[in-house]
């Protein structure tokens, strides 16, 4: 084999690896983050695969937050609750209706949903059951990183995950 041929094979291997990487990124999906405020309009597609890799190198932002630490003490129990959800039938778990706000937490088909409607805000959260099952695994880890949370979004069906609208801002995170 000549040096030229060797370089040709190396270049070809790198090209195949690059294409495989692109396919993997596309297959994992994109999280689209859209933010609208009076001063800002942002639309940012985040490849989930890259977010997972980058998240491994970044400390989870809320780790030092006292409220999060208090919440994280019950991670095993929360993981148990998450694991129960996929086996449950479609049901309305919590429903609150008052003059000022409506709150619904329910399961429909393959989605777990939270809807909050108030005079100043509207929140819609939809988590596919597959994401919940993966999130339950994240809660098994005593020290998760941001990459673990990104990993739970991999390969999900397209659609809105989170939608928050207040008087001054609108945030939408969806999977594409």
């Amino acid at each position, binding site marked *: 084999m000549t040096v030229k041929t060797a370089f040709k094979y190396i270049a070809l291997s790198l090209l195949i690896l690059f294409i495989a990487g692109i396919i993997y990124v596309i297959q994992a999906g994109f999280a689209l983050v859209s933010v609208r405020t009076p001063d800002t309009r942002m639309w940012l597609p985040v490849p989930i695969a890259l977010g997972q890799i980058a998240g491994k190198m970044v400390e989870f932002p809320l780790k030092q937050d006292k409220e999060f630490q208090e919440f994280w003490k019950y991670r095993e129990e*929360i993981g148990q609750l998450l694991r129960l959800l996929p086996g449950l039938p479609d049901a309305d778990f*919590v429903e609150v209706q*008052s003059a*000022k706000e409506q709150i619904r937490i329910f399961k429909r088909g393959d989605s777990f949903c939270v809807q909050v409607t108030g005079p100043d805000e509207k929140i819609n959260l939809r988590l596919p059951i597959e994401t919940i099952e993966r999130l339950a695994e994240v809660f098994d880890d005593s020290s998760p990183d941001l990459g673990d949370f990104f990993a739970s979004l991999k390969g999900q069906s397209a659609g809105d995950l989170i939608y928050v609208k207040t008087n001054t801002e609108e945030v939408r995170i969806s999977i594409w």
Partner: protein
Amino acid sequence: MKKISRPVVAIALAALISLPLWAQQKKDPWLHVEVRESKDEPEIVKVNLPFSMVDVALKIAQDKKLNGGKFRLQSTELSVPDLKKIWTEFKKAGNADFVTVEKKTENVKISREGNYLLIKVSENKQQKVDLRVPVDVVDALLAAPGDELDIKAALVAMQQKGNSEILSVNDKDTKIRIWVD
């Protein structure tokens, strides 16, 4: 012998396959709580949870008084040991009216009928509180040692009872209903 048609076989197979799933769903009863308030700002709260979730939620309960599913009753008038003594005597009496209070505008009656403890309160001849608790649930509630009420054991006993209305309260402004199915 008559041939069995394919649709009949398919339906029978589907029923057999879904039977374990149906049985699994049937195994885990659900706790339902409904509160309706009709004050200045009407409000309706409905909670429907399978007992398996209620059990886990009890572990998370942040209330300092609710520790591991046990509730410490802090009453200066009636302690849990006193309640246990009263309950033991009530049980020995069997089916009976334990307490009957009749006032001009209010009637209170605590009695036992079969396997249920009944507490009824009425005001101006209108039913306000209608509490119907299985005896087993009261036994479980009072089973914890010391001055604690074992909420978790009471929920387990409720779960074993299956279909049952536990509590119904009808007030002028508030209606509360708790049941299991």
